[in-house]
């Protein structure tokens, strides 16, 4: 059930102070040179005004670029195993866009479905998401093409929308969200519903393609080698798209070890890398870059909807902003959705 309040922008520092004193770590976008990065902030934090998304997505908070799955000491060849799964502090992630919040829903479906992943679960369970609706977008944004939108609530515990210059509309969707409201009761004023004020300030993000039509069409396009080759001719296989993607969850497991000991690490990986599927025998099921580009599209827009009932993309556009050869995913998907089988 959604409950709605308002909060003055000037009261946010009070809210952060209450959260910090209640034991929360607050993480929010901060300026880092010409980009935005997510960092732990003090209660004096003032939200950044820019619309632009953080350069890296918020997924690191539950799925870091590398993390130890187990640690071990090596003493005289005898190993001492440390397999404790460390519990992180309760954390409020403030000020991410609705697309990034929705991506946690995709990550949870992957990591917590089937055999639940303990390392992800402990970090996700202690995380509260307060997202900010988008009032601006850019040419890379395509959330509305994948079933989301600039004021969409999926994944968020609280969604704030700047309905007035000095005031946010506050919608709480979960117990975690209501716990934040309860932590600072004096700062929130009750209000009756979001009303039209929210719609009026949201960014207008054009729909670029139909995700349903794309999912229907992809299986019949699989064997069209020339189509995928044409789309991926420029692809360097650098993996930047996967690293900035809030919903990409593929990983490698590698040991890193010195003489005293080491760790078995989980590291981000990408289906765009040629070694991703390379067998020890030398056989590689995805030999060409076009096969790897096809896998990226098929996995997100055709397989994941069947595997976890979600599209593996939230339309944040980071992959296209980060691509060194300017491949636009939304353009490519729009082409695919309209290609006759």
């Amino acid at each position, binding site marked *: 059930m959604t409950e709605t309040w308002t909060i003055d922008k000037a009261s946010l520092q009070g809210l952060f102070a209450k959260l910090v004193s209640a034991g929360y770590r607050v993480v929010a976008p901060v300026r880092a040179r010409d980009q935005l990065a997510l960092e732990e902030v003090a209660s004096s934090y003032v939200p950044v005004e820019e619309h632009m998304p953080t350069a890296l997505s918020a997924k690191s908070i539950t799925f870091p670029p590398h993390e130890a*799955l*187990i640690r*071990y000491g*090596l003493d005289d060849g005898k*190993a001492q*195993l440390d*397999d*404790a*799964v460390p*519990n992180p502090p309760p954390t409020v992630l403030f000020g991410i866009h609705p697309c990034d919040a929705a991506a946690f829903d995709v990550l949870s479906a*992957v*990591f917590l479905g*089937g*055999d639940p*992943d*303990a*390392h992800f*679960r*402990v970090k996700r369970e202690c995380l509260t998401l307060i997202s900010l609706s988008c009032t601006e977008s850019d040419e890379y944004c395509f959330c509305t093409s994948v079933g989301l939108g600039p004021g969409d609530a999926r994944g968020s515990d609280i969604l704030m929308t700047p309905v007035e210059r000095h005031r946010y509309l506050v919608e709480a969707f979960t117990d975690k969200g209501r716990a934040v409201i309860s932590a600072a009761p004096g700062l929130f004023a009750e209000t009756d519903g979001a009303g039209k004020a929210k719609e009026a300030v949201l960014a207008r993000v054009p729909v670029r393609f139909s995700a349903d039509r794309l999912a229907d069409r992809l299986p019949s396009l*699989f064997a069209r080698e020339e189509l995928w080759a044409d789309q991926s001719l420029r692809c360097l296989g650098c993996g930047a798209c996967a690293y900035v993607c809030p919903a990409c*969850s*593929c*990983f*490698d*497991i*590698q*040991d890193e*070890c010195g003489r005293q*000991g*080491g760790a*078995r690490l989980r590291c981000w*990986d990408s*289906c765009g890398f040629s070694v*991703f*599927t*390379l*067998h*020890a*025998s030398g*056989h590689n*099921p*995805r030999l060409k870059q076009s*096969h790897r580009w096809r*896998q990226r599209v098929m*996995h997100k827009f*055709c*397989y994941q909807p*069947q*595997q976890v009932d979600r599209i593996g993309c939230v339309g944040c556009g980071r992959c296209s902003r980060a691509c060194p050869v300017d491949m636009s995913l939304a353009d490519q998907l729009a082409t695919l959705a309209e290609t006759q089988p």
Partner: protein
Amino acid sequence: MSATNPYTPYQMLIEHVTDEAPGVKTFRLKFVDEAAGEKFSFRAGQFAEYSLFGEGECPFCIASPPTRPDSIECTFRQAGRVTAALADRDEGDVIGFRGPYGNVFPLDEWQGKNLLFIAGGIGLPPLRCVIWNVLDLRDRFGNIDIVYGARTVADLVYKNELAQWNGRDDMRLVTTVDPGGEIPDWKGRVGFVPAILEQTAPQSANSVAIVCGPPIMIKLTLPVLAKLGFDPDHIFTTLENRMKCGMGKCGRCNVGKIYVCKDGPVFTLAQLRDLPPEY
């Protein structure tokens, strides 16, 4: 609240090492923690991640049958960093083991049926688990035929067991080596597995075929099985793709809507025909 870590390996003592073929070894492993070993169970077809601290993990099948739970055996070819480091280990050393992962061969459905095993080279270990499993429950199955080939006589694995199987009168074993791979006193056949299979002409009625070997062998064996009358639903294989987590999360063994590690590794030919050819 502490969480159970799914990446914690069991510690396994290497009880015995067998040199099977050039670059191929079999480890017989025992659980260091006996209580954990007693709780551990698996079924034919499943695999595990074998590991060494400081080197990494490698997925291989469990090559011993669940009917002989006193130890776990794995057979591997030295091919990369982890397998090279494993091959350096000796009896008395300890390695890591986590699993079991993946689906199983449907032995219950095979009761009363004839079983035809076709293996090439290092493709025998995954089938050896099933072969011993059905031999240990011999009266539940019909004829048991094995066609096993390798490039050379030296490359045949489990030579002692091949001799045992050859001596049994309740099964038939045909071994073959590629032309040029024979030695003067070689008593088996000479020829490629698909051709030898066709010559042995096993019956397809009330039968299932289980195939594992290099991709080229599988590719040329399937038409022979079709010619012999085997239905795609009655031809089984076990796939191998690069894998890391074993739980359908790390993404690399994804083929179409399935993950080889979680939805496989055992598939029928009918199931494989529904997948893109990315394995």
